[in-house]
């Protein structure tokens, strides 16, 4: 009886898995079909006449290498920036006592609740005044710190025994050395997983880059893909799917390697 009911639940859960994943599998498979094949045998997972033609067309129409590099470069700056500022801020909150600590922490964390629309006009004006339109730095600059990151680093620091830090502080070892030689090595798995989350989010980012990157040479992958989707219908889906497939490889690889750490970090972001 109970076994029977449990199979029912598994059935439901497997249906959910398929609903979430099948679109992606069809996307990959259709990216290897010609436009005609993709229309006549759209639900055939293994293409009968697999072809690279869509990828070759993409390579002719856009500067793929440049676009992938732009995306990678921008995501790397954002990730490094968020890790460095986040570790420094978290260290200060964890190990220094100072006036207004509670206020500052609250102010930092509250930024999660600031909608991007309330900052986008002034930020756009600042970035264009700084002559940073169409540059990766223009996209990255306003995002070099991250409240969720500070929160996650702080939680990770909880696992370092206080006595350890206290004992080295008494020896008057400068705090940047403590951070570099003790905290960072202990937190390495956390830093990697939090960094992986930052990188994936930045890799996929769309809204802010569309305001800053107007020149096709400065496009990142999401912007290039957006150009292949027509709102009037008439999208060449195999072509758009080929570009999407290129786009998902990097996040998928990162997830394959760091899956356990990433899920742990996401979990801990919800806990007190």
């Amino acid at each position, binding site marked *: 009886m109970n076994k029977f009911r449990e199979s029912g639940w598994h059935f439901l859960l497997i249906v959910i898995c398929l609903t979430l994943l099948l679109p992606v599998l069809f996307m990959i498979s259709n990216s290897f079909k010609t436009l005609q094949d993709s229309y006549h045998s759209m639900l055939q997972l293994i293409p009968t006449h697999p072809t690279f033609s869509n990828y070759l067309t993409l390579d002719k129409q856009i500067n793929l290498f440049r676009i992938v590099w732009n995306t990678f470069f921008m995501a790397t700056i954002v990730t490094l920036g968020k890790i460095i500022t986040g570790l420094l801020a978290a260290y200060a909150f964890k190990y220094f006592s100072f006036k207004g600590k509670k206020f500052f922490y609250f102010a930092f964390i509250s*930024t999660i609740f600031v909608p991007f629309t309330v900052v986008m006009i002034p930020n756009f004006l600042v970035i264009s005044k700084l002559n940073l339109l169409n540059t990766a730095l223009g996209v990255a600059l*306003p995002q070099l710190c991250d409240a969720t990151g500070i929160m996650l680093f702080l939680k990770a620091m909880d696992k370092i025994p206080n006595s350890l830090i206290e004992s080295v502080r008494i020896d008057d070892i400068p*705090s940047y050395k403590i951070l570099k030689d003790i905290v960072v090595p202990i937190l390495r798995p956390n830093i990697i997983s939090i960094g992986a989350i930052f990188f994936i989010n930045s890799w996929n980012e*769309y809204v802010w880059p569309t305001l800053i990157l107007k020149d096709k040479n400065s496009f990142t992958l999401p912007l290039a893909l957006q150009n292949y989707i027509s709102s009037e219908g008439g999208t060449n889906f195999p072509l758009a799917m080929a570009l999407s497939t290129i786009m998902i490889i990097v996040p998928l690889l990162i997830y394959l390697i760091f899956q356990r750490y990433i899920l742990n970090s996401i979990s801990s972001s919800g806990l007190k």
Partner: protein
Amino acid sequence: MNNRNKKNKTLTIAYLFPTALILLVFIIAPIIYTFYLSFFNWNLIAPTKDFVGLENYFSIFTDPVNRKILLNTVFYILLLLFLNFLVPYFISIIVKFFISKMQTAYKIIFFIPSLFSLVVGAMLFSWIMNPVSGPVAFFMRGLGLTLPNWTNSGAMAVVVICLITNWKVFGYNFVLLLTGLGSVPQNIIDATKMDSIPKWRMIWDIVLPLNKSIAFYVLILTIVQGLQYVFTPISVITQGGPYYGSSNALYHTYLNAFVLYKTGNASALAIVTFVIFLVLLYLEIKFVEGRTNRYE
């Protein structure tokens, strides 16, 4: 000792400085400037701005397009709460209490779409739901039905757009909620088993109240993040149309600012959105006590 205190103080400032600087320049100052802009009519370029007082705020509640946008925003919130909060919550309860194996496998698989860009999601759904060449239309033709052109209907477009974000955040919210359920003490659950209390009762009376704080966190996140997430599929697929039917407060702000160059209207709408989010933040602090009060 005094010397050390002084040193500590400079260090604290040095460590917080990068974050504080970016926060000040790119979040706090912009909020103030947007508030200032909301009292003027401006087009983002002209050298002068016309002071119009509260006119931009009045127009949010009197202009029929703006009223439609606000109504749409409420529709979005309700749909997002159902799809991105209630459904994952229900599924996380099933996975936690009603099955005995494969929990981790489900967690790993459900999370996969959250790795992908919403632009990919928007492309996929515009293929799946394409009225001419998509698989759904294909199946419906087999049954003698036709798939209506959903981009011509505001309500249907909103539903599809919410489904796209659901595809992306379902696994993410599921993982958060499942973690919350995992922190309910096992001995309480065991005790109810001994007393042979039915499972649904145990969940309703014990687990849900104990899990209240994380659930509320995900609920607020669903609204705050969800309204920003739907921006991407709106922008890629419908551009807010047909006739503002699938637009919401955030997309309309963008449209006013960067397409119509009505900076004042955009700023006023942004400030109203911000105030609503602040109310949600306040509720979060009240309900999820301890989360942000780490240093009390």
